[in-house]
């Protein structure tokens, strides 16, 4: 790692920038200009968030809060848990623990910093993670390995059985930093009684682990409150997703990421509810006048991303969608599977409900909910088994009336790269033109945006889509 990077604490620096950016909108033009001078590299990105209106600003505020929580946790006597995306942080909030979602930190670093997270990723390799491991954890973890962050207290993840690279990265971290570790493990099927029981048993063990780490018993009243908030959020998301199916969609590409970034960071928190309300309100307004959420105001094509739906630096990818009048129907990460949603009806056993009537029912709800978050839901088992990757993709593509599909991942993703060729073959048979991107969603160096964009444009042109 460059020595000058060691002079800054990674999370402090990120927090400060986001703090500055989130306050820019409150300032006079003069003040704004002055603030921008302090965050020169972040200026473009901050401007595009702020340009996106109050939702963009709310997202910035959310991230600002996120970092503030991390930076001040120990002062406030709270424990910090390192965790992964596709893990519902609601349990942490219920237990008064501050969560860190490593993948989100990597993605955010990529958006905020001009040079992306390269240095930290490379540090991850120097520490011992294989260069071929997933860049999404490796980036932020690199900063932790280098000791440039508020230390974490323990590690919790939910990927054994789902994604090796991910589970392995956290297991490695536990050893490297010598921190306690608990990992939920998922069987290969979802929805049958045996798996459901296993989910609950495993989750109970997890809670016991966290109780031991914090020295506090789980407070069921608090859990109930959090879950009720989750329920509220779920209802809002359901509304938003309903509107998303309309043609033209009232949502902009950036809303998708807001939806899941919020879910992976602030599920069960009031801030996230507020963000969702804003998204829902603005969408409703557009629906009323039949307006598109895209900048061009014109929707020519609808794309559903069959895995990760973003691409590294500078928000290039979303802007490209916007500029080409392509509506972003979200990806595997951004949809959610609570009961009574249209696309879950075709998929048995794949949805969850929230029931706060008793401690036992709450346990069940949160365990089943966690088991239905993106990755742990549909890429845990063979892709062509009932309600797994293929069926889910088809249901979503149909529901959101996608014209074509795009796979985007990271070379570190053994799990999907091992069967994406089969998957695409089947999707094509179902009539969906499908493009495989060869990039790394977190590392520009694997394939430059120039090359990625060219391949995308070629796909749309050759397949007669645009």
């Amino acid at each position: 790692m460059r020595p000058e990077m060691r002079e800054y604490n990674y999370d402090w620096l990120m927090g400060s920038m986001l703090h500055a950016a989130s306050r820019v909108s409150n300032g006079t033009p003069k003040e704004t200009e002055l603030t921008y001078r302090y965050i020169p590299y972040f200026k473009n990105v901050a401007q595009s968030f702020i340009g996106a209106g109050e939702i963009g600003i709310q997202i910035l505020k959310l991230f600002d809060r996120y970092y503030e929580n991390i930076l001040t946790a120990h002062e406030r006597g709270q424990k910090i848990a390192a965790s992964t995306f596709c893990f519902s942080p609601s349990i942490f909030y219920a237990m008064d623990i501050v969560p860190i979602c490593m993948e989100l930190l990597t993605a955010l670093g990529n958006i905020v910093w001009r040079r992306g997270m390269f240095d930290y990723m490379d540090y991850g390799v120097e520490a011992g993670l294989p260069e071929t491991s997933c860049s999404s954890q490796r980036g932020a973890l690199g900063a932790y390995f280098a000791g440039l962050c508020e230390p974490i207290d323990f590690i919790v993840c939910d990927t054994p059985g789902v994604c090796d690279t991910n589970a392995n990265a956290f297991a490695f971290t536990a050893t490297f930093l010598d921190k306690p570790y608990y990992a939920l493990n998922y069987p290969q099927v979802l929805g049958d009684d045996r798996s459901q029981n296993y989910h609950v048993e495993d989750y109970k063990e997890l809670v016991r682990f966290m109780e031991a780490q914090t020295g506090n018993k789980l407070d069921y009243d608090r859990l109930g409150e959090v879950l009720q908030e989750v329920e509220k959020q779920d209802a809002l998301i359901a509304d938003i997703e309903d509107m998303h199916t309309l043609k033209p969609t009232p949502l902009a590409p950036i809303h998708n990421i807001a939806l899941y970034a919020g879910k992976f960071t602030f599920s069960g928190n009031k801030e996230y509810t507020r963000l969702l309300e804003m998204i829902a309100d603005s969408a409703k307004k557009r629906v009323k006048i039949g307006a598109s959420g895209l900048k061009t105001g014109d929707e020519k094509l609808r794309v559903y991303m069959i895995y990760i739906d973003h691409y590294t630096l500078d928000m290039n990818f979303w802007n490209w969608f916007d500029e080409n009048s392509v509506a972003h129907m979200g990806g595997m990460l951004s949809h959610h599977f609570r009961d009574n949603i249209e696309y879950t009806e075709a998929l048995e056993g794949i949805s969850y409900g929230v029931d706060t009537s008793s401690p036992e029912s709450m346990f069940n709800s949160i365990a089943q909910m966690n088991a239905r978050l993106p990755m742990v839901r549909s890429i845990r088992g063979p892709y062509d088994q009932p309600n797994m990757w293929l069926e889910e993709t088809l249901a979503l593509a149909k529901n959101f009336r996608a014209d074509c599909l795009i796979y985007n991942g990271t070379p570190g993703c053994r799990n999907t790269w091992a069967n994406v060729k089969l998957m695409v073959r089947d999707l094509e048979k179902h009539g969906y033109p499908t493009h495989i991107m060869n990039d790394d969603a977190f590392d520009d160096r694997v394939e430059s945006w120039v090359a990625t964009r060219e391949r995308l444009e070629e796909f749309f042109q050759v397949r007669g889509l645009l």
Partner: protein
Amino acid sequence: MDTFYDAATRVRNKPILKWKEEGRSVVGYTCSYVPAEIFHAADILPIRLRGIETDGMDIGDTYYGPFICSFPKCILQLAGKGMFDFLDGAVITPGCDAMRRLDECWRKAGEDYEGILPSYFYYFDVPHKTEPHGMQWFVKEIRNLIDSVERHFDVRITDEKLKTAIRAYNQGRKLLQTVEDLRSQAEIKVSGTDVFAATVASTVMPRGEFTADLEKWIQSIKQNKPLKNGQKRLMLVGSISDEIDLVELVEKDNHAVVVAENLCFGARYESNQIPENGNPVQALAEHYLGKSVCPRMYGKYKERLGFLKDKIECAGVDGVIMQNIRFCDLHGAENALFERDLEAMGIPCLRIEREYGPLIETGRIKLRINAFLERIS
């Protein structure tokens, strides 16, 4: 020894072909978490699936994507070429992601190439934890496997038969442990290549035949003259390997002997005997899941390090070679940790990344091994 070499270096080896000629069934499995005893009890020959003898990757690459470990790709390649046509069944496990996707890749290839998919194709869901609920899950998984074998092959696998099978396997384990003890001694009477051939052979030979041959071989080792002095005593660890030539390469110029290993096809589980009384399914579960030391069991690094340390001490190891197949994250990351911790204890380590399959990078690997030997001499 010839039998062992034949078995270890050929996919379609003599014992398997003979077994087939007798009209008996063979089932292949991908991972050391599968209790072979179950098949033995049903008079089915259980063999580990391997990837040797491939001469291209056109079929492997058709189904698997590019960033995948070459071991399961080689298995698929062999399957596609009909090299596994003697199989009556295959059991796939979630050993790692690349391995578990062999399920889909093989099934899809089966749609394109006629006759390459065994009629019995089973997914064995091994959990990643040994906490009580994990163990419970695994016990049920074993019971389900037994049921399905009984149904498909029209056999009865009674507790008695299982116990007999466990006894038969234990005997082999005990003998392999004897070999391990022999090779660890100060005076080396057997090359690492020979020992590895024998351990690999143990995964693809009928147990009775293997045990008998092994017993004879052990007697003959004891008569051997000690190998030349001054050779470095090395240990080989890391990604899956059933490649005899890899060990051979290390020992080639007579500068080193491999006196210990911790490899998936090696003898690492052999020191544990399975209780022969009591509930056999429970005993199998506790052995196969509970005693495992493979990095797919996350969070058990300390146990694995302890295991290495014991071996290093007991075999008087001078240096450890850690290899990982490209795109194998599990072993890649763990090797780095091993290196950190073992070097800190003063044990020299060499970390290499390689491709599985016909040993194509001989020159590059040899260079590193030579430099390593120069370093520790």
